[in-house]
């Protein structure tokens, strides 16, 4: 089970943060700072797996962003690496050539994509197409909703 997922920049600024397991506020803060410093100090050729206390952290660097996921000891590490890659692929598909700026300004959409991919700490949707289809359906429904409401309000 994936316990948490962070996305942060090369300078340590957090771009996305999602917790799938209960941690106290203090733990959350300490984990965030610890992991960002630890991961930023790793060299390029080093292993993508980091052991931190009882958990393992799988991280991968994509251009200027680091994606880090914390897992418990029983999970398959490479599997989680693939989940991270899948997430980045989805973001790419959704935003079209995603870059850090897209995630900074559209973080709510990035959260929606994440919610469709990983739920309760497990991968819920392995197929790329269905995730994108679903999110687009949601987006369209929202837009439609807004339009109909505006029309209603203008009529009334």
């Amino acid at each position, binding site marked *: 089970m994936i316990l948490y997922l962070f996305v942060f920049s090369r300078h340590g600024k957090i771009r996305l943060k999602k917790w799938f397991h209960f941690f106290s506020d203090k733990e959350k803060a300490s984990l965030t700072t610890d992991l960002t410093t630890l991961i930023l100090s790793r060299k390029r050729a080093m*292993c993508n797996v980091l052991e931190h206390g009882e958990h393992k952290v799988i991280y991968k660097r994509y251009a200027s962003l680091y994606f880090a996921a914390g897992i418990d000891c029983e999970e398959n*590490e*490479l*599997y989680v690496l693939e989940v991270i890659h899948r997430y980045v692929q989805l973001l790419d598909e959704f935003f079209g050539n995603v870059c850090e700026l897209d995630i900074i300004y559209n973080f*709510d959409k990035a959260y929606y994509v994440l919610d469709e991919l990983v739920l309760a700490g497990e991968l*819920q949707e392995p*197929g790329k197409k*269905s995730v994108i289809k679903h999110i687009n359906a949601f987006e369209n429904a929202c837009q439609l909703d807004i339009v109909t409401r505006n029309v209603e309000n203008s009529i009334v």
Partner: protein
Amino acid sequence: MNSRLPTILNTTYLTSGLSRGFFEFVTRVGEARSKQEEDRYVSQEIVSLKTKLNHPDISSRKIRDYITRLIYCEMLGYNVEFGHIHAVKLAQSAKGLWDKRIGYLACSLFLHETHELSIMLINTLQKDLKSSNYLEVCAALTALCHLLNKDMIPAVFGLVEEALSHPKDIVRKKAVMVFSRLFHDAPDTMIHLDEKFRQMLTERDPSVLGSILCLFLEFIKADPNKFKDLVPSLISILEQVLDRWLPRSYDYHGVPAPWIQIKIIENMGLLARDDEKISSEVGPLIVHTLRKAENGVDAAYAIIFECIRAISRLHPQTLSTIIHKSPNLNPLNVITRFLKSNNHNLKYLGLTCLSEIDPMWWIEGEWWGEEQMNIIVDCLEERDDTLKRKTLDLLYAMVNSQNVVVVMEHMINALRTISTTDEFSRLLLVNRIVEISGKYPLNLQNKDYDKAVDSTFLIISKSIESKEKSEEIRQYAVSEAIKILESDINNTTKNLTSWALRILGEFVKSTELQEKIYNRLCDLLTQVDYEIQAQVITTLLKCVSKMKYCPDNIIECVAKCCQSSSGDVKQRSREFIILSKDFVLLDKIIKPYENFDDFTIDESLSFLDNFVENALKNGAKPYNRIPITREDTNAATEIRYEAYEKPNMTYFPKQIMTSLPTYDDSRLSESDRDVLLPNDRSNQSSRGVGPPVTPGQLAWFGVTQEHLPPENVHEHTSLLADSQEPNYNDYEEIDSNRQSVISLIPKMKLQPSTQSWSRAGYKPVNSTESDKFIKYNTSNTRSSLRSSDKVLSIASVTSKTTMTPEKEKLASALFSGVGTSDPGQ
């Protein structure tokens, strides 16, 4: 970012869909040059948000915007607790889908399962779960996964159950995930749904299948026996996946649905544990999956990893058939590939796989060999922390009575180098060290035990410095020590007693020192032998220094020890008697353990210089050093230009004189000549007589007369006789020949002995173990080491570092005894 253009024209702004204010806020924060600047902006924003949110009437568009800003601030790490209630309100009162979405997102990010406000969402969630719009149901289920807690369960359970049969597969999938989450909190509530879930295994939609498998994983982990009948269906699903029956969109870089494969294999591994029938059904399929996955992509490696994990869980019978079938088809060969690769991830994978597999299966020759040993020893010294730790884990997994010494050494070294803040790993290491030393007490000699004890001291003293839990640890350690000392002293080992005494001396507090401890220590003085007596006296001294008071009966007891026949005890007891009266001096001498590293010992005893000077002034005689060198020291310091006299023949009997060992080409094999002293090839004809070799020395090398090759005595003498005016070259030759003769002696025909000399040093062979061991070891040594340079050259192409002799030694020491049935385990 074009900051020159006004915001309205900025393309990023236009496509983001954010409000202008928010966009500018984000830009400002992003461009902030220092943490303080960022702090300032964000706090300003938070203050303004507070006021804005407290307005009674805000349009939904504005509140969406404010909540999004709140999410952003929270993500940066600032406290936005005041906003939580607004998020809940938004979710409750949301009129449109968009508002609902943002509201649920905010709630799932802000709240957590034990938050008070999550209860307020129950109504909203129920309404949404009943809605006819499947998107609303999805949103509610997603939020539920994050917010579910015990109070909510009765309210939403029925609705989620209904969602399991929803026509839309997305809804079904999400409902299954909610249940997997629920299983953690309330497993009993789901028993009646068992049938329903099993039926869902036949689902046609792969994503629902994926989530059902996750759910079953949870079930099986909890209780494998109930689900053993699932094996046939799992097998058929896996076969279908491997045959590419799933739609193309589920392929990932050419691998068909890796996630589903992994989940199924994990399930099968758990079900097959300790069950032979299932293992035999499942084993071949796992191997088949492994074969199919060997196409070199990342996802494929994940599958391979899972397969190996599952293989390690199979019943030993099945496992042995799989491994022994034929060496080429052995699935464990992949581990070798992983270890040899340069990619750190794959090395990590290799190490993890190795530690999963029981060392019993590391059978030499089939898939396990010296290359792997070398690579693992390399990994011990990698700069990459993760690899180092993984190797330590591996060492722990393969510890047996033969290599326990080396393993312990490494663990203790690691303990010293790990930072003090990383408590978890230190704790783990200490636990392991203690466990190992408990399992193999006989193999650990005193030296290693001392090291282990020292490291425990280090931990205790460092943790006392860190103040957290220090009091607990200290008290616990002291009470354990007292318990040990009070028990019957003949039953406890010497090491344990000395450990207890040291703990008591260092860490006991003066308030805890009571009469009975003192009395017990005095009693001990009469019961134990010299070493422990010495330690008891020192412990008493430390206690006295803490108490600043020495009861008379102690002085009496110690005074008795002054008559002891052991010099150490005498010395210590006399020191005690004097120091126990002078507490000022005592304080200067007794230092606490933490400052031990600052101790420097002045070996020249310079602090006594004054004393010496005074004594000399008063007429004492200076110390007269007796020279240890030979009589003709003057001559020996200069280079000698004349030939030495002929050696006196009466040194040793003639038979040995005529048969001094010589360097004879034909006797030695090619590789030996290559290896040792390559410059000797030119000196084959010249011989030199080394320093007289006594019969004793020859015997030591195991050389006996019959084994010595014939030589040419005249050659020996001619060289020396001819050289009236020897020049340096001759001497060099002679010297090097001397060297060569002596060093080559072991290479001559040796009597067969269990001591095998090799380039890598002496290989310890445990002669007390069964014959199997000796056979294993001796057959291993010569052949593998002789060919080891060739192996090395292959290994060095793939591995970055070259093996030094020390590393080889380490490798051979570590892996001795692995792979055979160790009676000690």
